[in-house]
């Protein structure tokens, strides 16, 4: 599986344009952008990995992200990929050897729920770009268009071992907009950070937030039943939109084949519908903010009604109440170790949630939703792990590390590229000073695609955002005690 994943080449930027159908009508006038099928990637990734060399991390305790633990392990990074992993492997000629004895190595940590960039620090009005709270359905907005690459939070997260992020719009709306997957590398533009080939997500929100935000404006939805109506109405429109485009493309093909006299009239393109149709086509993954178990069951019923799949419930405080249903539906759940009780729909949030889900076979994820918590994601997983053990659920650390690596990778659609330490995968790797589930663990080195993007002991490998340049505090991490 992994080797085949290795052969998967991320789509080249612009590839979709060359395969678009417009060229045959070269003599006719062209109106680019009117047909959603003509360019599925209008903001293509310009990510390029930093220069890397052959690296051998030698002697570490390795959590592979596949459920295994390797003592005295060696991990070889070459050409931006993991090329070998195992105990006591030979070190290739020319490799830079990193002595990792007494230390720990994990896959790069993945935060599947982040608002970095869209709710950047400092928390001022100007940086508040996460919620287009002007309509309950804003499936047409894309989080990447709000991302400020200079958010200092990205670099703090990097220091915490985060190598991949899903940046979501906020949860004010039933449909918040498109989520984007980023590699956590400093970039001048958001395109410089975009994870090549990653699918988009669609942020949806259940429960209190949409009904509060719009109810307080004296408009729909103001109740949970109003929420459900809003979802269904939108999916009906989206199915109709798909049908119209399918019919148009069929008629256009007939016309080009000489089977029809008249070129068909194209439907009007609708960016909101493009996103929803992308979900119905299976190319965009539903990321659904939803706390209560009973509401998850409602959302699942809607997904059956309209024929799509929910990739993950986010926050999921009550997921343990419906773990069997989630397992059956193959829906991941992202939650916290111990956040709970801040509103009614999180009042039944328990520390044992993740362990109960994991025990039930649910794809379990620990996420942050927060610029500070994202810096400590394995520790947050440790809280959930300890609560599970206290409740008699034995889960080992090699399994629990999947909550912040392989499982979020699966839920956001990048497991074929990252999330585990397996030959052929992107060399997104963290070297920890101690067991990553320890409160004392610090990242020593963070690799993205084989390049050192953060090194606690090398000031030349410590990025600094423009905003923090010239300030006294965090500006010189190398000088930190």
């Amino acid at each position, binding site marked *: 599986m992994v080797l085949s994943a290795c052969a998967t080449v991320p789509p080249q930027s612009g590839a979709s344009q060359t395969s678009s159908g417009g060229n045959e009508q070269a003599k006719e006038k062209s109106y680019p952008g009117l047909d959603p099928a003509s360019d599925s990637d209008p903001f293509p990734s310009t990510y390029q990995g930093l220069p890397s060399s052959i690296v051998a991390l030698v002697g570490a305790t390795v959590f592979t992200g596949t459920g295994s633990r390797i003592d005295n392990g060696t991990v070889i990074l070459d050409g931006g990929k993991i090329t070998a992993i195992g105990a006591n492997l030979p070190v290739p000629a020319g490799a830079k050897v990193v002595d990792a004895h007494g230390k720990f190595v994990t896959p790069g940590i993945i935060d599947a729920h982040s*608002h970095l960039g869209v*709710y950047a*620090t*400092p*928390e*001022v009005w100007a940086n508040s770009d*996460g*919620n287009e709270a002007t309509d309950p359905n804003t499936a047409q907005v894309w989080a990447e268009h709000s991302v400020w690459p200079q958010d*200092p*939070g990205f670099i*703090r997260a990097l220091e915490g071992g985060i190598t991949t992020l899903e940046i979501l719009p*906020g*949860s004010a709306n039933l449909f918040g907009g498109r989520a984007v997957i980023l590699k956590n590398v400093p970039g001048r533009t958001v395109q410089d950070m975009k994870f090549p080939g990653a699918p988009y997500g669609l942020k949806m*929100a259940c429960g209190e*937030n949409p009904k509060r*935000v719009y109810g307080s404006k004296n408009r729909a939805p103001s109740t949970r039943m109003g929420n459900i109506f809003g979802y269904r109405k939108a999916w009906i429109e989206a199915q109709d939109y798909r049908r119209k485009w399918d019919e148009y493309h069929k008629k256009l093909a007939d016309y080009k084949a000489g089977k029809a006299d008249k070129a068909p009239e194209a439907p009007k393109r609708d960016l909101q519908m493009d996103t929803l149709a992308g979900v119905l086509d299976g190319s965009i993954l539903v990321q659904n903010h939803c706390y209560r178990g009973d509401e998850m069951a409602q959302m699942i019923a809607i997904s059956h009604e309209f024929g799509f799949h929910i990739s993950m419930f986010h*926050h999921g405080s009550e997921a*343990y*109440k419906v773990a069997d249903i989630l397992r059956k539906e193959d829906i991941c759940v992202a939650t916290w*170790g*111990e*956040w709970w*009780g*801040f*509103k*009614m729909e999180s009042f039944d949030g*328990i520390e*044992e949630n993740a362990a*109960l889900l994991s025990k039930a076979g649910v794809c379990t994820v620990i996420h942050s*939703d*927060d*610029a*500070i*918590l994202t*810096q*400590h994601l394995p*520790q*947050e997983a440790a*809280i959930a*792990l*300890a*609560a599970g*053990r*206290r*409740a*008699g659920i034995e889960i080992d650390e090699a399994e629990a590390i999947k909550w912040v690596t392989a499982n979020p990778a699966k839920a956001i659609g990048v497991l074929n590229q990252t999330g585990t330490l397996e030959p052929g995968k992107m060399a997104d790797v963290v070297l920890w000073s*101690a*067991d990553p*589930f*320890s*409160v*004392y*663990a*610090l990242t020593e080195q963070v690799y993205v695609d084989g390049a050192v993007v953060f090194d606690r002991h090398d000031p030349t490998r410590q990025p600094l955002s423009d905003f923090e340049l010239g*300030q*006294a*505090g*965090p500006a010189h991490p190398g000088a*930190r*005690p």
Partner: protein
Amino acid sequence: MSRARRFRSDSQNPGALGRAKRGPRGCGVGYPALKYSLLAFAAAISLMGTAQAETIAITHAKIMTLGSAGLIADGSVIVKDGRIAAVGANVSVPAGARIIDAQGHLVTPGVVASNTALGAGEVEGEATSDDFAGATDHLSAAFDVSLGVNPASMLIPVARMGGVTRAVIVPELPGRGDKKGDKLFAGQAAVIDLSGSANSITRRYAALSADASSGAAGRIGGSHASVLQRLEADLDEAASYGANKGGYEHGTHRPYRQSKEDLEALQPILQGKEPLLIEVHRAADIRRVIELGKRLKLKIILDSVEEGWQVAGDIAASGYPVLVDPQTDLPNEFESLNSRMENAGLLSAAGVVVVVKPPYSGDYARQVRYNAGYAVAHGLPWEAGIAAITRNPAQVFGFAEKTGRIEPGLDADLVVWSGDPLEMLTVPLHVLIKGEEQPMISRAQELARRYGALDPAQPPAYRH
């Protein structure tokens, strides 16, 4: 910035921003599975109600006393009549004592959650369940949060499961944009124990909560400068009142902005008898608050102080203690641009008494020990990390004669830990408050039990 960090993130209140907050383990750490025995739970609950505290001997313990006895590698703590009767390597176990064999595990004083809403609010998103923000135009400095404390709060057992035995409830100013007042004083802090018993107030008037943050500046419509001027003017008014109470009764005083109750509440502050807990963030503001405190001879506790490390020498020289949340390392506000994880360690190294606090909301109280751990990870010595959540808050908030150390005569607030208390993978094995062992169960464990193994013949609602 508001002390409260009411809504932490988009998931909680879209559109409103909040910083979040958040929290190896000893080799061979055991995780005793909870036995979900209803009988045991009921028995434990009934035990809590009894006034007769049993005599308990915690034996074979590694004891971190935080007192003159220091660290005892292998010793016992004797608990009698709710208090610590003896502690040491060679103390004898009284006849009839119930023995808790610590099997070499660490025993510390109970953890203190400082600067929390715990006990004065249930669900922060539901204003009707909040009792921590009560200041009004006529009841500001005088607002006494202790009168609204609910010992039966459902949040208390959850915090207790994390080893928290006392909480310093600090009121905050109302105003989530909707109830803006023009006050700087949020009211009187109170210390409670987490036994859940009716008499759980340890101390009223533990400190007066004041706000000198940009949030306060916004509230009174001015700048950081006007906050400091206003603070001094309010105190000056109280001094005038104190010097001429007869004039107040006869109506011959100058016009006062504050109510009689508030002016009265400021007297112990002016006399240096009660500390003024001031939320302040920026290095320059910290210096000015210190200058004000020294000039008026006030007893001050500096709260938040993200940029404190930049003026650590000034703070140390002032003798004022600090409350810090070690995880706040982002430039969240223009008054906290130089936030960093090393703050607690650098302040401690400069000689400042450091109290580590959890995030404000009561559901976060149990995180305080992880916060101390993060401070240790970034330079605070481990012993100082433990002191920052035990001895130091007891000293700073005036209940050191009750708890905070393991010494004879103090209340027996004790925790036996499965490992290092600052580690996430460590759990409390035994929690004692005022000599009574607490049931290791909360509503959360009951929910876990109810849904942990589904049974179609017995739906969850019938399992309790």
